[in-house]
Structure formats: structure tokens, C-alpha cells
């Protein structure tokens, strides 16, 4: 396990860096999630936001209320004392998806490029239990990995101006669900009635970093009843 490095990012944020890789690493990410939870739990005065990402933890603070050197020392000791334990009872969010057709306009193209049938692409996408590596881009958008190499393709050359809410998409070895209608450059292979973010709900966000998600295929008729 690499030693955690504490890096400044301007005068109001520190970054706990656990690795400098370019590939998704679940064990590094698990450590980031554990450290973020420990920093939150410590309830440090002046800390405004704690943000675990793929291989770092961002800590935003008010420089008028926080001594940056003391905070850096505290973050280092918290980071070095956290061991990512595989959480014993991780909830697996089960997400129903209506793949292909009008709901997944890019499924056929992915199948062609992968030299597979659409059914085989769906089977590959629905098989793994994905990890929520982090959230970002838009409220509730979870970056999930890792997608099977056979169906992992770089994002579209030209992003779409609008992607419907609930669209399930692939980009590189990541997959995700668009929580709301927004522009997007990922390959859309299906749609779900699950809403990762709903401000009117008691718990507005369904997913958190470190959670597990598994997709399963449903028929269009079942989908239309739900959305």
C-alpha cells in the first residue's frame, strides 16, 4: 500500500493522493472511500466538503477557520490508519434496464463494433456486480466499473445535446445511469426507471461511493408501466 500524500490544491482544498495511476483500481478506491468516511466522522471544524474520487480524497476547508498544516497532518494520520475493509454487508442495488430499441440507440453499434449479437452485449453488461467508484458530472451520476473489455469503447466523437433521464450508457470501461436529462457523450444502450437523484425523495440520492450495482434486462412492456 502506497503512503498517502497530502497535496495542496489552492488555499482552500487539500487532496489526499493514494495513487497516480490511469486505471480503475477497486482497492485504491476502497481506501479513498474509507478515508473520506473517517474524515467526515472526525467532524473537523472548518471542513466544508469531503469528496472521494477514483484514487484521491478532496477535502475543502475555510482557510479562515482552519490551519492548513494542522489539517494536512490530521489527514495524513487518518489516511495511514484506515485500512479498507471489504464491507461485510454491501447492498447490491438491482437496476432493471430496458436494453436496445428506442431506449438504447447505440446498442446496435456497440454490438457491430464488438462483433457480437445485441443479446450478447446485454448479457456482458448485465453480468458483473459493478462498483460505484465515485459520483460526479451531475447530481447523482455514479461512475461504475469495470465494463467487460469486449464492449468497452471510447465515448462518442460528438456528444448528444440531450440524453434522456434514466439512460444507461457505456464509455471506455465505465458505465453509468444519467440521473436527469443532460448533454452526454456516452454510448446509450438502454434505459431504466430508477432515478439515482430525486430532490423530492426522503433520501434524494440512491447511490454512494463504494456501493455495488447490478443491472438486469426487462421487457419494454414492463418498463413502460414503471416510468
Amino acid at each position, binding site marked *: 500500500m502506497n503512503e498517502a500524500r497530502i497535496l495542496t490544491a*489552492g488555499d482552500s482544498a487539500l487532496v489526499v493522493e493514494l495513487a497516480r495511476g490511469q486505471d480503475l483500481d477497486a482497492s485504491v478506491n476502497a481506501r479513498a472511500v474509507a478515508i473520506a468516511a473517517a474524515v467526515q466522522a472526525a467532524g473537523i471544524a472548518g471542513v466544508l466538503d469531503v*469528496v472521494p474520487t477514483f484514487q484521491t480524497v478532496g477535502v475543502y476547508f475555510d482557510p479562515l477557520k482552519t490551519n492548513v498544516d494542522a489539517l494536512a497532518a490530521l489527514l495524513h494520520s487518518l489516511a495511514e490508519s484506515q485500512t479498507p475493509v471489504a464491507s461485510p454487508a454491501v447492498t447490491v442495488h438491482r437496476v432493471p434496464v430496458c436494453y436496445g430499441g428506442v431506449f438504447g440507440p447505440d446498442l446496435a453499434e456497440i454490438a457491430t463494433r464488438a462483433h457480437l449479437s445485441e443479446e450478447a452485449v446485454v448479457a456482458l453488461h448485465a453480468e458483473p456486480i459493478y462498483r460505484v467508484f*465515485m459520483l*460526479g458530472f*451531475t*447530481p447523482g451520476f455514479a461512475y461504475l466499473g469495470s465494463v467487460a473489455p469486449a464492449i468497452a469503447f471510447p465515448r462518442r466523437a460528438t456528444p448528444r445535446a440531450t440524453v434522456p433521464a434514466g439512460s444507461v450508457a457505456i464509455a471506455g470501461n465505465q458505465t453509468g445511469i444519467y440521473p436527469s436529462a443532460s448533454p452526454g457523450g456516452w454510448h446509450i444502450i438502454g434505459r431504466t426507471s430508477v432515478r439515482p437523484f430525486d430532490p423530492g425523495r426522503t433520501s434524494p440520492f440512491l447511490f454512494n461511493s463504494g456501493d455495488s450495482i447490478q443491472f438486469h434486462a426487462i421487457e419494454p412492456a414492463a418498463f413502460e408501466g414503471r416510468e
Partner: protein
Amino acid sequence: MTAFLVVRPGLQTTIQDEGRWGWQSRGVSVAGAMDPYSFRVANALVGNNADAAALEMAFVGPELEFEAARMVAVAGAEFSLSVDGRAVQMGGAFPVSAGSRLRFGDRVGGVRAYLAIAGGIDVPEVLGSRSTHIGSRMGGLAGRALVAGDRVPLGDPAKARKVRLEGQLVSRPRISAGAPRVRILPDARIDRFADVSLQELQSMPYTIGRLSDRMGFRLEGRRLQHRHGADILSEITPLGSVQVPASGQPILLMADRQTSGGYARIATVISADIGVAGQLGPGDRIWFSACTPGEALAARLAQERELMAIEARSRA
């Protein structure tokens, strides 16, 4: 509901406060005032707490009709102002009576002004903040800029401190002409860039490009070079951070930035100077200048003392 009516909305008038903190781990942008210093001055002048929601306007200001009397103040970009056709000055609080129209006229300098109203603006909080984030349609009034005919709910003026009237409590707008110097702290991972890049970033002003808004400014000027490519695994995107995509043309991230980004960061504007950047728009120039962490903190402390002095002077 006591409100003000939007007669003319201006170009991009939104409700903002100090931002929506605590939810970036769920992908929720912070938003908040683009010039936090002027936002704070406006609230101080009417006796509000520092976090009361105010109106931010950009380029073209609105015309508003008040349904109830309030003390108001404007800070930031310099606009000509009138109440029912009578000119009023920026720099202090002034009263607006029920039925009166407050009109923003010509803009003399700067881009963004803040209208604070005693008691604040009372739209519902979303995830702890009233700030409008247009990209995710969150906060403010229906998550969007104001439009003609909107009625915007006013807060309880009894919550504001008593303040002095119409004095020139803020001597002059801080808006500088030309290419204002904005101080930066070089990023800890400056080794992602070619050795000369940090010098090149400071060697001449950058021009703020046409595709620039509350999310960020696309900067045009000297191209910067990465050592091992522009793309990184996404991590946090602090306010004022300067990201460099593969094109080598930097992007300055502002209030409505996304919560994470995948381009290498070369530097971050210090918090004391972010308001200077917030007063710029397309076609304006910005000149970066590196400083030390000690200088950044000293500048922020000096700014805080200045704000507290304005709060003290404004008390009745």
C-alpha cells in the same frame, strides 16, 4: 407571500448565496456568487448575515417592482441605478418603498453586481442552499435565471441589523481596468507540466473566450505543455483551479463548475482574488501571478478585516 416582481429580467439574473456545500461527493455543484467579496459587501450594507441570498446580475441588470418596503444595497460591477426615476448611488444602503421600481441602467465597469435586500430572498433551500445552479436546474427560482413576470419571495426584514442610510460606506468599486493581476498557487503536481509552463502561464495576459460562463472561463493565449498527456483519473475541481486540456489552452473553473474533472490542474486562483476573476467576461483579459501560501492567507485575512470593517461602519 411578500415579493418583488421582475419587470425586466436583465441578461442572466440569478439568486445566489455562499453556495451548496457538503454534496460534491454526490455530484452536486457548489454554485454561489461569482464574486463572493462583492456579494458579502452588499449583504453587509443592508445588515444581513453573510449567507443571505441575494440577486446576482451579469452584463445587463433587471428592473424590479417591490411589493413591500425594504432596505437594499448594490455592490460589485458599477451600474447606474434609479428608484422611480430618481438616481441613487451604489456604495451604501437605500430604501425602496412599496410599489417602487428599482432599475439598473448603464454598466460602467465590471460584469457582475449583487443586489442585497434586508431580510434576504426567501426561496426554499435545496440541499441547504438557495443558490441557483442552471446546469442541474437546482435552487433559486425553479433552478433558472429570472424571467419577466417572476415574483421572488422576500425574507423577513426584522432578521437584518439596523443600518445607516445612503452613506458612502464602500469608497470605490474594486473593478480594475486592463488586465487585472490575479494571484495563483502553483499546483502540488506541477511536474505534470513541462518545466517552462508555469512561467508561460504568467508571462502575458490571457483573454477570456466567448464560450465562458458561470461554469468557467476558456482562456486564449500561450499554449501550455503537458509532460505525460492532459488526462488524469477524475478528481476534485476547486473554485479557481486552472485546468489544461490537451489543446494546451487553460480553463479557469468558476462557481458553477462540475464537482470533478479529468484534466491536469496547473494552478489555483487564491480565494482572496476569486472575486476579481468573477468580475470578468468574454473579451476581458486576466494576468496570473504566482504567490506563496503565506501570501494567499495574508491576503484573505486582510480581505476579511476589510469586510468586517464595512459591516461595523454600516451599523446604525
